[in-house]
Structure formats: structure tokens, C-alpha cells
């Protein structure tokens, strides 16, 4: 799952950047996504010892939120240069990553993760995260375009 987070974070950063040319973010968005994803994995793994005492679902919530915070904060630093209220983006990413991890909480510690979790839950989780962050960025970008005529 962590490998998916890193590679998926970088790849989705590239795909998302293709939707953002209007804001002239160039490679900053991809860089922020890549650094956030890699940093997120290290910080999340490092925080397991702190969160380990909590029940499985709370542990998953905290790890997801930590991962989301690393990715979201990096992207927020880029987005805030062009969009007012960009902190909402970081909040949306944190919430969505927390939801993703809660979704897989019962299988997160399994040695056979892909065999443990039903496929519809994996892709359903991706879809919810994609739609959730999509709604946040659509709101922020449309407001920016509408207000400033970027």
C-alpha cells in the first residue's frame, strides 16, 4: 500500500498537473506531490510506534491523516501562490487520505494485503478519494478563475 502511495502520488501529480496549466504551476505541483508522497511514507512509518497503542481503526485514521498531511501541505505551498483559501485543499487531502486508510484498516497489517482486501473496496476507495479531492480543487480553481481571471 505504501508503494502505491509513493508511485501513485507521483503519477497522479503528473496527471493532475496536466489539468492545471492555466495556473502556470509548471513542475512545482509534481515536485510537491512526489516529495509529499515520499516524505509521507517515512513520517507515517515513523509514527506507527506513536499511534500503535490505539485501536486499529484509530491507528488507520491517524496514519491516513499523517500521509494526507504530508502530501496536502506540499501541494498547499504551491497552490497558495495562485488560489485564495488554498488551505482548504490541504484539509480535503487529509480527510480523503484518512478515509482511504480507514477503508483498509482491517487489512493494513496483513502480509497478503492484496489477497486480504476485496477489490471493490480498493478501487471504491480510490474513486471516493479522487472525487473528494476533485470537488475541492474544482471549487478552489473555479473561484480563482472567476475572481482573478487567471
Amino acid at each position, binding site marked *: 500500500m505504501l508503494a*502505491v502511495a509513493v508511485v*501513485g502520488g507521483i503519477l497522479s501529480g503528473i*496527471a493532475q498537473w496536466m*489539468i492545471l496549466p492555466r495556473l502556470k504551476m509548471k513542475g512545482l505541483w509534481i515536485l510537491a506531490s512526489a516529495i509529499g508522497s515520499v516524505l509521507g511514507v517515512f513520517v507515517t512509518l515513523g509514527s506507527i510506534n506513536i499511534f500503535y497503542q490505539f485501536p486499529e481503526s484509530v491507528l488507520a485514521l491517524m496514519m491516513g491523516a499523517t500521509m494526507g498531511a504530508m502530501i496536502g501541505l506540499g501541494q498547499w505551498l504551491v497552490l497558495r501562490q495562485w488560489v485564495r483559501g488554498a488551505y482548504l485543499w490541504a484539509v480535503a487531502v487529509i480527510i480523503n487520505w484518512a478515509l482511504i486508510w480507514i477503508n483498509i484498516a482491517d487489512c493494513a497489517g496483513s502480509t497478503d494485503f492484496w489477497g486480504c482486501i476485496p477489490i471493490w473496496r480498493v478501487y471504491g476507495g*480510490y474513486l471516493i478519494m479522487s472525487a473528494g479531492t*476533485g*470537488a475541492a480543487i*474544482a471549487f478552489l*480553481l*473555479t473561484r480563482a478563475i472567476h475572481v482573478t481571471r487567471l
Partner: protein
Amino acid sequence: MPTEHKHNNDVSQPTQEAETSNVWKAMLSIWIKWTLATFVSYTLVSLLLGFLA
């Protein structure tokens, strides 16, 4: 003067409505593109890593 006032109102109303409609269209367009781009990215990576594992 009152005639001119009425004229301005007639012009601004549809323009504002069209602008609001455009904002919603832009929002929907970004949402769909973003959702697809992100979903496809994570799905591809999962399939690839699942295949390699």
C-alpha cells in the same frame, strides 16, 4: 434616463446568468477531469504493483 436604466438591466441579467452557468460548467469539467486523472493513476499503479508482486 429611466429608459437607459431599463436597457442596462436587460443586458446585465442574461450576462450574469451566462457567467454563473459558465462557472458551474468549468467546475464540473475540472471535477470530472481531476477525478478521472487521479483514479486512473492510482488504479494503474495498483494493477502494476499487484502484477509485479
